[in-house]
């Protein structure tokens, strides 16, 4: 096969795959904006973490000894970011979604529809209604289509709001606290390693013991430099 034919073939295959990919995205996220925000958020964290790790790997100014420390640190930092984002955001979103689907969080229009379906509506002090229970799912009702437009737009709004709250809690609260905790431990370990290395190469000057000399050296150089 000649080069132009190869290129043409490659172009056709790529266009076909891209076409299929677009349809998959349309089917998967067309009616689930909350899920889309969680998934693209995770993807964003993965790509930005790869960029951070890549920046350390390709930086010629960082000596290889420091790279051996910095690369695992960046990877651990990325793992905290990604796991915390996914676990927290997805949990909050899933809970909100469950509240709406099970009928715990509703609108008067949805309640009216449930009443029309013949279901017993929840009342204070009674525990006989299936509405709001774990196993109850509004989307599985036989006449769901009658309320689907109103229900979907309400549920999508709640999902997006919950995803946003979850991402604020994970990105701006949980991750910074965990990351600071981890980074300060790493910093202390790195400083103590540097000290040990320096002290191994020291010789005690005449007139004082090695232990005394180490004590003095330590007390003079304890200031943290950045």
């Amino acid at each position, binding site marked *: 096969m000649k080069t132009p034919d190869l290129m043409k073939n490659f172009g056709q295959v790529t266009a076909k795959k891209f076409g299929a990919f677009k349809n998959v995205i349309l089917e*998967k996220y067309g009616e689930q904006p909350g899920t889309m*925000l969680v998934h693209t958020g995770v993807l964003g964290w993965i790509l930005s973490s790869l960029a951070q790790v890549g920046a350390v790997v390709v930086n010629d100014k960082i000596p290889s000894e420091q790279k051996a420390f910095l690369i695992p640190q960046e990877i651990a930092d990325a793992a905290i970011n990604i796991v915390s984002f996914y676990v927290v955001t997805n949990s909050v979103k899933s809970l909100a979604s469950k509240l709406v689907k099970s009928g715990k969080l509703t609108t008067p229009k949805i309640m009216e529809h449930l009443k029309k379906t013949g279901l017993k509506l929840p009342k204070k002090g009674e525990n006989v209604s299936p509405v709001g229970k774990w196993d109850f799912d509004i989307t599985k009702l036989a006449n769901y289509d009658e309320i689907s437009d109103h229900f979907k737009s309400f549920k999508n709004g709640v999902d997006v709001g919950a995803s946003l709250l979850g991402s604020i809690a994970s990105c701006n609260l949980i991750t910074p606290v965990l990351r600071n905790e981890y980074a*300060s431990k790493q910093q202390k370990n790195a400083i103590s390693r540097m000290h040990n290395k320096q002290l191994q190469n020291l010789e005690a000057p005449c007139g004082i013991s090695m232990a005394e000399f180490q004590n003095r050296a330590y007390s003079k150089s304890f200031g943290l430099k950045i």
Partner: protein
Amino acid sequence: MVSTNLISQISFGNSFASKASSIGKRIYDAIPNFNPIANEKTIERIAKFGKKCSSAEQRLILGATAIVMQPAIDARNKSVDEKTRKVSVARTIAKVIAGTLTGFAIRKACIKAMDLKMFKPSNYTKVTKDAFDQYKNAMGTIVALVVMMFTNFLIDAPFTKFLTNLMIDEGSGGKKK
């Protein structure tokens, strides 16, 4: 013998998971139902938020809350010395400003670009306008993430460095010569 042990371990795991799930269900069922949201305007706002809030708006809201919360967390980090803490606060503010501005602008531009013919899926006419709008948000965000793999190096990193240095210089009483 080994297989019997394995089976008993698996069945123990299954029964543990089923008990945990049944406890979870009971806790959930015990939570009282919320009163239905009566205000029609609130319901409309919730529905509109679901339709209009794309990843670009999410990034902007995240950035706005981050600028309030993250520097405060760094400033209270007693595990590091004073100087490290100041640099950490300056770097966090710089990262949030640079990341939010570029993140918002690139996501918004990429979502807008989804109106181009090359990005439209073949069966977009078969779905509702809302579903297609959500597709544009999702596809635009994916394209934006690819674009940001480059802009992270080309814009974010130097801009963050510039802002950090600016804040450190300001904090230490003007630029050092």
